[in-house]
């Protein structure tokens, strides 16, 4: 950080401390909401949802071979395969922001071309494990599922459209040697790796199992009643798997990469929850921004509400996962379900800073087309979702 930036920061904090009317009832209420929301996250989401999800993300980063995926992005790769791999590979590759942009530039200039490159660029940040899990846990499984499905479908459609529109200059790319990360030596079979990941996913699902609606009978209440027993049994199985199939070094690098994600994401999420709580409050509790504004702008399921939501999502920068508390606040303040999905689909993949970088790689015209396609599709998807779940 430059010295001048530090000074500006300190002056900014001072001015805020000096002039903000902290004693005003609305400000007091907002401040209280910020911490109430933080507590809600700490009590309900951190232990049962976020921590298991971090371990899963860590395991994917360490144990799933990136090389096996990257070979489908080479210039010789089959079209069908490269699109399908691009649309889902975000789960594996994009857990770290280090990978997304360089990889996009690589696929675009040297590899499979603009179609798969833009498909990957979109799906990367949109469908990572952490984001989908947290969306489903906090905003409901319908929205989580719609987000996951929407992201995969959008990735393919966006990629195909881009390839179609810019068909001609796809031929002008330079071919050359490409380098992918080394394939690590494999000690386990695919089945063993899958069982290991599956056990962790089941732990996440059972620990985060929501209380079924009162009065419901059958399987769900039974699972809910036994969820801690199931979770503990699964943890024992995970322990046995680790002991039998994994070396000490592997366990260590797994824990290290999990810790890396936690260090990177928790502070951002902490800030995001505080800001969302301060501005928007928990559902049913008003805070700084009046609820009428939000429900008049983003309520219902009109084309305008959806368009505004997807445009705002496209321009705004959401640090990893912070879109979830912000959306929770917006929904509580009267945002419609359709616009919520529109914002989720356009939001994480696009932001103003990110557009500038994409622009430097593929030029203004293509970037504008890419953003335009996503905003329009998000709006449409939001309207469909809003109509179905209204």
């Amino acid at each position, binding site marked *: 950080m430059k010295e001048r930036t530090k000074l500006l920061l300190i002056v900014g904090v001072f001015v805020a401390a000096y002039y903000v009317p902290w004693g005003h009832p609305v400000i007091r209420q907002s401040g209280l909401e910020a911490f109430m929301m933080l507590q809600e996250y700490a009590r309900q989401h951190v232990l049962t949802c976020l921590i298991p999800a971090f371990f899963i993300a860590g395991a994917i980063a360490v144990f799933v071979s990136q090389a096996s995926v990257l070979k489908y*992005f080479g210039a010789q790769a089959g079209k069908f395969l490269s699109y399908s791999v691009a649309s889902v590979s975000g789960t594996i590759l994009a857990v770290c922001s*280090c*990978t997304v942009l360089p990889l996009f530039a*690589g696929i675009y200039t040297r*590899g499979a071309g603009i179609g798969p490159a833009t498909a990957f660029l979109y799906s990367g940040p949109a469908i990572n494990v952490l984001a989908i899990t947290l969306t489903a846990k906090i905003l409901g499984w319908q929205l989580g599922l719609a987000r996951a499905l929407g992201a995969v479908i959008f990735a393919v459609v966006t990629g195909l459209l881009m390839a179609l529109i810019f068909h001609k200059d796809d031929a002008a790319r330079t071919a050359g040697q490409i*380098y*992918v*990360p080394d394939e690590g030596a494999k000690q386990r079979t695919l089945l063993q790796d899958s069982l290991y990941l599956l056990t962790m996913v089941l732990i996440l699902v059972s620990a985060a199992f929501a209380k079924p609606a009162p009065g419901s009978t059958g399987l769900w209440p039974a699972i809910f009643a036994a969820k801690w027993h199931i979770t503990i049994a699964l943890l024992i199985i995970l322990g046995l798997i680790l002991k039998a199939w994994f070396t000490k070094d592997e366990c260590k690098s797994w824990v290290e990469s999990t810790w890396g994600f936690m260090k990177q994401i928790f502070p951002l999420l902490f800030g995001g929850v505080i800001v969302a709580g301060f501005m928007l409050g928990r559902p049913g509790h008003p805070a700084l921004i009046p609820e009428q504004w939000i429900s008049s702008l983003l309520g219902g399921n009109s084309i305008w509400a959806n368009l505004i939501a997807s445009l705002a999502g496209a321009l705004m920068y959401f640090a990893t996962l912070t879109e979830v508390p912000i959306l929770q606040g917006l929904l509580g303040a009267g945002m419609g379900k359709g616009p919520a999905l529109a914002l989720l689909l356009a939001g994480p993949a696009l932001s103003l800073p990110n557009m500038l970088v994409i622009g*430097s*790689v593929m030029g203004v015209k293509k970037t504008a087309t890419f953003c335009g396609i996503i905003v329009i599709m998000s709006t449409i998807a939001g309207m469909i979702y809003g109509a179905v779940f209204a």
Partner: protein
Amino acid sequence: MNIKVLGPGCPKCQQTEKVVKEAVAEAGVPADVEKVTDVMKIAGYGVFGTPAVVVDGEVKSVGKIPSKEDVKSWLGK
């Protein structure tokens, strides 16, 4: 000798730069360590994954933080 560390500025890339600089200092080889952060330039090397290390135009490692021993072996020591 010219060493380039390719990476857009994520924590792993900074760590790689640190490892490379330490290895160069310990080996006592005269070498320039250069950081490349421009994604287009990175793509120009054909690397699909960062951090990557390029020694005298040759791609040595991709997508991971190399160990100090690895870096020294690339320096010819």
